[in-house]
């Protein structure tokens, strides 16, 4: 527990740095917020007035001070495009992205890890080649392409899947928010019909992202398994006559998991930020598309809120990975 608190404390300077850098970055970006919001027909006085109302005429240190003071109260500011508080919008949109990313990650792990293990155990076999083809395809096909392809085949041609229009179709109502994950909230509400609807909506975007996440997971699993399978303690396990599954799963895979877990953390954070394209293709009301729209509109507050949220998530994620590593590896528990 003390370790966890220490780690969190160590992350504070990083977060402070993120606050400063995002503030400065949004200010040096091209585009003038006041002009953008005044509209193309606004007069110079109107623009000046908006600038004053937004506090954009103040010197930078003053603006920064106001931003930080608001932050300490948990206020991330208002979005100018939607007129909503940024915090509330992130709170509703982050679960959408997180649900999508987690589903994709679980799907990717479920396919990639067994594939990587089998490819390593039967090196040079058909399954090894299949693994190579899939990982190459996974990294070389862009997500918007696979996403559109899946929509075309499974919605347009086959009609097996609902239209790619967000988290729920128009006839369903969102469940009362508990976790923000529709798949969980619908079950908590006992609404299996909406659960099925939400599940049907998430299948295609999650598959699209999973195809992308497959490659690094399968590759690292295979490489890590190969390294472990060649190590001396596996020779000992074999020399002791331990059964094949015991050697491969209990002895090899658990040791091979360490690098895999590290890569999983990277893949997860990468996906969370990079699923903008998938969110666009499937009209998914996620945090990625929110941030991009705000960025295009020179809408500072959502961008700053987005980056800060990501930074916090990243810190928590790394902490989680560390804890997981400790759970797997007694040497890590001992050393720290």
């Amino acid at each position, binding site marked *: 527990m003390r370790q966890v608190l220490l780690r969190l404390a160590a992350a504070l300077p990083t977060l402070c740095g993120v606050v400063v850098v995002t503030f400065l970055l949004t200010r040096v970006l091209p585009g003038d917020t006041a002009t953008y919001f005044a509209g193309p027909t606004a007069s110079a006085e109107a623009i000046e007035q908006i600038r004053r109302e937004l506090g954009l005429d103040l010197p930078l240190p003053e603006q920064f001070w106001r931003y930080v003071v608001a932050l300490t109260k948990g206020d991330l500011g208002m979005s100018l495009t939607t007129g909503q508080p940024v915090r509330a919008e992130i709170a509703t949109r982050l679960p959408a992205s997180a649900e999508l990313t987690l589903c994709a990650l679980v799907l990717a792990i479920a396919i990639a890890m067994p594939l990587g293990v089998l490819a390593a155990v039967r*090196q040079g076999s058909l399954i090894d080649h299949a693994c190579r083809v899939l990982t190459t395809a996974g990294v070389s096909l862009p997500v918007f392409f696979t996403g559109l392809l899946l929509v075309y085949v499974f919605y347009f041609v086959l009609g097996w899947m609902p239209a790619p229009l967000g988290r729920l179709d128009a006839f369903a109502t969102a469940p009362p928010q508990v976790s923000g994950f529709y798949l969980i909230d619908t079950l908590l509400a006992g609404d299996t019909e909406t659960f099925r609807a939400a599940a049907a909506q998430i299948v295609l975007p999650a598959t699209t992202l999973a195809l992308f996440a497959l490659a690094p997971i399968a590759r690292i699993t295979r490489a890590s398994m190969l390294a472990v399978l060649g190590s001396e303690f596996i020779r000992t396990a074999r020399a002791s*006559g*331990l059964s094949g599954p015991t050697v491969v799963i209990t002895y090899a895979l658990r*040791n091979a998991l360490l690098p895999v877990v590290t890569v999983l953390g990277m893949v997860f954070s990468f996906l969370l930020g990079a699923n903008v394209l998938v969110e666009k293709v499937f009209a998914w009301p996620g945090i990625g598309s929110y941030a991009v729209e705000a960025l295009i509109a020179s809408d500072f507050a959502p961008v700053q809120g987005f980056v800060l949220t990501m930074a916090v998530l990243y810190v928590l994620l790394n902490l989680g990975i560390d804890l997981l590593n400790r759970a797997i590896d007694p*040497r890590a528990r001992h050393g720290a």
Partner: protein
Amino acid sequence: MSNVLSVQDLSVAFHTRAGVVHALDRVGFTVGAGETLALVGESGSGKSVTAYAIMGLLEAAGQVTGGRALLGEIDLLAASPAALARIRGKRVAMIFQNPRTALNPIRPVGTQIADVMRRHGGATWFNARDRAIEALRAVGIPDPARRARAYPFELSGGMCQRVMIAIAMAARPDLLIADEPTTGLDVTTQAVVMDLIAEMAAQTGMATILITHDLALAAERARRIAVMHAGHVVEVAETATLLARPMHPYSARLIAATPTAAGALDDLQSVPGALPDLRGTIIPACRYAARCDRRQADCGETLHPHEAEPGHSIACHHPLGVAA
């Protein structure tokens, strides 16, 4: 005395990018119940490959190209992988050098012993833990209940080798193959570990194959010694006989190269030359000939290991102590 293991004409080839390496050529020896046989030779002479071939643990590139390894009625070289997995650890066990890396780094040592006991030793889920603690006590580990929960990195090298021995002894095997078991341990620990192996063997009547490059260690611990050179067994004899009257020139050289407590450092002589290249098809019949100072014209002729006197076999056309 009945033979526990009889290896006959064992040949192994490795398929490498640089060509086929004939690592072992018609290797043969026997080891009887309760007996310790030492396989001695310099690095690369094929000692460990012999052990791995017997255990069916050769890496993918290695292939047994001939011969038999009879454990009782079973030919280990012809046994199916499933049959071999039942024999390994149960009837033939093995311990390795560098015990710390030879143990699973993230599994408590007691659990590792229990794994093998559940597999072979008839232990159940419920008593495997207690039996593992008993096994740790039997190999002389103090406070075994606590040490059973320790990970290899928390134990010394000597402790880890004791754990390895406990794993190997879990199912009371008929034969223990100890591959350089004392390498990487300090001298006092070496003696303790070797004593422990001898004690275990004496208790159960287990046969031991001791693989070592250390002729002094072999002389001290083994009843018989098989000298290997470049994938050939060049001489097999009782330890006293071999040390007193080596017949193969290489054995004689090896003895001259072994330090003794009484001898001065200057008396040590290295074996001249290096191991021959074992790639390709043109390998000399006597693989020592190029290094040998007794080489004669007929040394290129086919060489058959033969018994020069009862219990003393050699593979040499012009052995020492015999009129040339």
